[in-house]
């Protein structure tokens, strides 16, 4: 039941294949995977935050920031690629760190922390570039998102790392923290550090997703728009409970694939533009409702993402 999302995914892929058999070929399938890769990575990052009982709404604008910053700093100069890549990862890390510190140490609910961060990031980056992206990305930079094999490889590496991390000590203590912070603390878990690290992971994931999206489609001021909602939706579709303490990262990534498959399918059947959103909304609610009905609440679940309001 934990991986019910993959049944849905397979059904969607089958429906896609009916209309477009190309997806059954290795190249077609890889193209689909590549397309889904950034969202999968974002969902993996968001998973850590959500399972710890928090939200990260800042990932969308962080993705935009990464791309805009990369373009301005690289400015078409191939040699600048690698240092800038390192800087971008550091930036993601830093943003995650700030989110985590404000949420845990200042005890601001993460919904608000990351909402504020979203405003700050999108404002600051365009303040810096004067409103529109400047500069250009290098060819080397673009490879990571443009070249199918690179993109798929990065996704696989991130996915495997995420799975290993959840199986490792860190992941287990994080989930326990999301389930019962107090019990975790009294068992010696460094609750604050654990949570901060979850935000850092999400920030890093957003940085990687930003690098890939920038690579895939080039400089754009709206590359990250709405991605935070997509990522959260993907995670929830994967059966991860908002409020924390429950769900698997594999299913969260499966949720991202499912979401992407749904976009593709809707496009393919030409429900584009108009009622596509409506269908999407209904599917999301239905999927989450189905999940909730299966698991009757024996204990009252936490009401909201902010475990700190008391």
């Amino acid at each position, binding site marked *: 039941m934990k991986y019910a999302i993959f049944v849905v995914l397979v059904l969607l892929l089958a429906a896609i294949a009916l209309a477009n058999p190309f997806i059954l070929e290795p190249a077609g399938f890889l193209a689909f995977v590549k397309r889904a890769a950034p969202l999968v990575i974002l969902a993996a990052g968001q998973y850590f935050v959500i399972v710890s009982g928090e939200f990260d709404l800042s990932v969308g604008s962080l993705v935009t920031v990464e791309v805009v910053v990369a373009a301005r700093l690289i400015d078409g100069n191939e040699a600048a690629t690698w240092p800038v890549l390192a800087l971008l990862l550091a930036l993601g890390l830093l943003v995650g760190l700030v989110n985590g510190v404000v949420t845990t140490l200042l005890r601001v609910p993460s919904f608000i922390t990351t909402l504020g961060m979203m405003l700050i990031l999108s404002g600051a980056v365009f303040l810096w570039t004067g409103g529109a992206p400047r500069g250009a990305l290098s060819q080397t930079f673009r490879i990571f998102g443009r070249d199918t094999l690179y993109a798929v490889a990065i996704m696989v590496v991130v996915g495997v790392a995420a799975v290993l991390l959840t199986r490792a*000590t860190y992941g*287990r*203590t994080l*989930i*326990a923290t999301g*389930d*019962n912070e*107090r*019990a*975790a*603390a*009294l*068992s*010696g*878990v*460094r609750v604050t550090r654990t949570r901060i690290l979850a935000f850092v992971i999400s920030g890093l994931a957003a940085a990687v997703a930003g690098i890939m999206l920038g690579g895939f489609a080039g400089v754009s001021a709206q590359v990250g728009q709405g991605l935070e909602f997509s990522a959260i939706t993907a995670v929830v579709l994967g059966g991860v409970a908002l409020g924390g*303490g*429950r769900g698997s990262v594999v299913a969260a990534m499966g949720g991202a694939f499912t979401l992407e498959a749904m976009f593709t399918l809707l496009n393919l059947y030409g429900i584009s533009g108009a009622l596509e959103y409506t269908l999407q909304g209904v599917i999301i609610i239905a999927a989450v409702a189905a999940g909730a009905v299966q698991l*009757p609440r*024996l*204990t009252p679940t936490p009401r909201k993402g902010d475990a700190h309001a008391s």
Partner: protein
Amino acid sequence: MLSMREIDKSFLGVRVLSDISLDAEAGEVHALVGENGAGKSTLMKILAGVHTPEAGTISIDGVPVTFGHPLDAQRAGVAIIYQELTLLPERSVAENVFLGREPTRRGMVDRSAMERQTSKLLLELGESTFGPRDAVGRLSVAQQQVVEICKALSVDARIIVMDEPTASLAEHEVELLYDLVRRLRERGMAILYISHRMREIFDLSQRVTVLKDGALVATRNTADVTQSELVSLMVGRELSHYYPPRAAPEEKGEVVISIRGAGNATLHDIDLDLRAGEITGLAGLQGSGRTELAKAVFGAEPFTHGTMTPLRPRSVRQAIAAGIGLVTEDRKAEGLALRQSVGDNALLVSRAMGRGTAARVRELLSRVRLAPPDPEREVRYLSGGNQQKVVLAKWMTVAPRVLVFDEPTRGVDVGAKAAIHELIRELAREGMAVLMISSELPELIGMSDRILVLREGRLAGELPPGSSEETIMHLAAADEAAA
């Protein structure tokens, strides 16, 4: 007055109640006893309209009723006082008392009427330490219990269910509660009284019903049974050997922890030695600082001054690193991540401390007598006793030298209780130093190699093993003038 007939109830396909019948008469205190998981709370929640039964009938004054929502039960005159307090800390006393039944005048909530009536109820209960406008969050646990009782009285309930009402009360508060219960009975109410404590049952009730494994065992007049009969009805066997044998003097080892002149905001001048192989019992009234002492030793609410060798922990992690563990009083809130598996919970401490993951979880689970020793099950589906065993396993993975138990058998059924007692003794025999807090004096007396008594944050004295309840109570409750 109340009659429940042939009640059945299942959760997730597991039958938790079958064919239960129970009545209560006006002016009667009817005690309901049974091991944890026997189905007492579920039965009461059915009566309160929280759960709906699959089969069976409830009738009040001979009229069949069905409760789909707590409100229906309330309207039928049933009030329930839960074990965990059900109050809103942000709201005032009056608002809590009348929650869900706010009096209105011309469509508006009549705040003054609400406060007036609350004052009246408080007065009736002899409560003068707080008023209807105080925020509930600022009241003590005992005061909050009074608010709960006000709430039950304010509905004009004729049937009151009390689910372990004394669990969080101090001794003198218990006396007040007794008074209250008797007064309610004299008013002609029917009271269903759930408790683990034999003394309360015999002090208060006229009849007692025993449940076991979701089935009715017997209903007796309290006057016609003895305590041991009742216990054997509950566990289904005679418990001749209640407590494991105490440690022999030669089993006691060196001093593992030595505390001198330590204190913090609530504790003062604590001198305490814990020896390997010894179980030190800690007695004291609610509010005497028992739990605070446990948490200070464990670094959760650290001592701010004084010495503690080998180390005065400033944090939980320091304490754990120094080989100290704490089995907390409130398992669900502080001990376990309920939605995680048994295995994950058992490994929580060793993982948190970076000790690596023990490969022998299964073995440990058998050792704590968890049945079945399945690491994959979610903890929330276990009974209280099994949950406590998981907590024990959690600490055993890091093999602490000192383990502090705060109410180790609270909410644990009689069978599991014995198992836990045996386990604690076993650990001591293997060289662990144990500090055990319990408000159940028989348990403390039965288990401890010596008993320390705490009063108002200070150690009031030390008693030898086998001291009587009276001696302990005398020390614990002695008023300041005598001390």
